[in-house]
């Protein structure tokens, strides 16, 4: 029977290579897979495109990736209060694609759901319409927004079963759930692993089809 549990964070991020596109869940610290963030920093990769809501603040969050200079581009909505990112951004060492948060998450969902894009009313008449196709529907103007996909998605769950079904803890669900749908390899860091059948089938948030690797922060 399928069992996606791996023994350590390094195994969970194995295969992540130079130039990969990597989604990282979390809104602030909630939903941030800290073990994976550290494990990737230790890989010695370069030139990552990072898709995440924030750019870290300080300490062992995504700041670590900027301090290690492994990110060449970030796609996010709110890279503020991010000392390390800011320094590199101002030095022109890292590219920023700023995306309104709802558009960011919807682009990820579109990637995961096999859509070629969607029409959003958000950003019309603002600087965010630059470079985007405008499409009018029923007299209202929309921007054509493109899907986002990734090589890896790294997220934080609460409980996973051995098959890879995942639940989240309160607001830590945020971008994590949708990111699991949009990457070739999806690794979930959880507090606890249980046997298949122990999660309520109605309360599973991420069905196991989306999950390739599960790592329990503390041993199961």
């Amino acid at each position, binding site marked *: 029977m399928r069992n996606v549990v791996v023994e350590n964070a390094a195994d969970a991020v194995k295969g992540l290579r130079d130039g990969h596109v990597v989604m990282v869940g979390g809104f602030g610290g909630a939903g941030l897979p800290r073990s994976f963030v550290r494990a990737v920093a230790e890989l010695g990769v370069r030139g990552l495109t990072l898709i995440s809501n924030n750019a870290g603040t300080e300490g062992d969050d995504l700041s670590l990736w900027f301090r290690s200079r492994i990110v060449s581009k970030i796609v996010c909505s709110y890279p503020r209060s991010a000392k390390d990112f800011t320094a590199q951004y101002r030095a022109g060492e890292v590219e920023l694609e700023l995306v309104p948060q709802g558009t960011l998450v919807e682009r990820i969902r579109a990637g995961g759901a096999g859509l070629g894009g969607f029409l959003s009313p958000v950003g*019309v008449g603002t600087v965010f319409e630059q470079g985007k196709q405008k499409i009018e529907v029923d007299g209202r103007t929309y921007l054509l927004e493109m899907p986002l996909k990734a090589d890896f998605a790294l997220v934080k769950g609460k409980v996973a079963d051995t098959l890879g079904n995942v639940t989240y803890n309160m607001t830590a669900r945020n971008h994590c759930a949708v990111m699991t749908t949009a990457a070739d390899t999806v690794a979930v860091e959880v507090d606890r692993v249980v046997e298949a059948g122990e999660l309520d089938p109605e309360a599973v948030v991420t069905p196991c089809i989306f999950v390739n690797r599960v790592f329990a922060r503390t041993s199961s």
Partner: protein
Amino acid sequence: MKGLERQQLARMVASQLPRESFVNLGIGAPTHVADYMDPESGVILHSENGILNVGPAPALGEANFDLINAGKSPVTLARGGSFFDSSMSFAMMRGGHIDVAVLGAFEVSQNGDLANWNTGRDEGEPPGVGGAMDLAVGAKQIWVMMEHVTREGAPRIVAECTLPLTAKRVVSRVFTSLAIVEVMPDGLVVSAMLRGARLEDVQARTGAPLRLAPHMRTIEPDGKVAE
């Protein structure tokens, strides 16, 4: 002319929210509106990082860093609350399911254009937009709360916004330290003023023409609005 302090402004906004409405309080000043809300009002607060029915701040020492609001401050969940992912949360916002979003602003124009995400100045930080645009476009009503003028005394209610826009023609009502201003199809209408203020006082601090509503109300210095 001394206007309302931030806390009194928050009390004023809280008192005006429709009963049993679904409300999103933006980051910053609007967050304080929660402190003045009548629990009997039945207002249900949304937080864009995935909460419906946000409760008050937790007791000292009881913060849970997986239970935070859009400003990344610890909150609680009220009875009957729920959690969901960002994709559903922004679907609620963009899809017009939020009755009122209360947002801070740098500038609001006479036709309801909103500038609240970018000061246009280089502050030594990269730009950040967060969920501001989604709220501004999606909520059924956009209310703005802000100081009537900038620290330098310049109007924030203007004929045309000079700062990068958040969204066009979205603001329906502006609560300032001096007045409540309704954005109508034919211009700005003052529906309430701080006790002792005259229209010319407010107009002098406003960058677009104002007129008085037929039925004017008075804002008390504590932020209460008398009919």
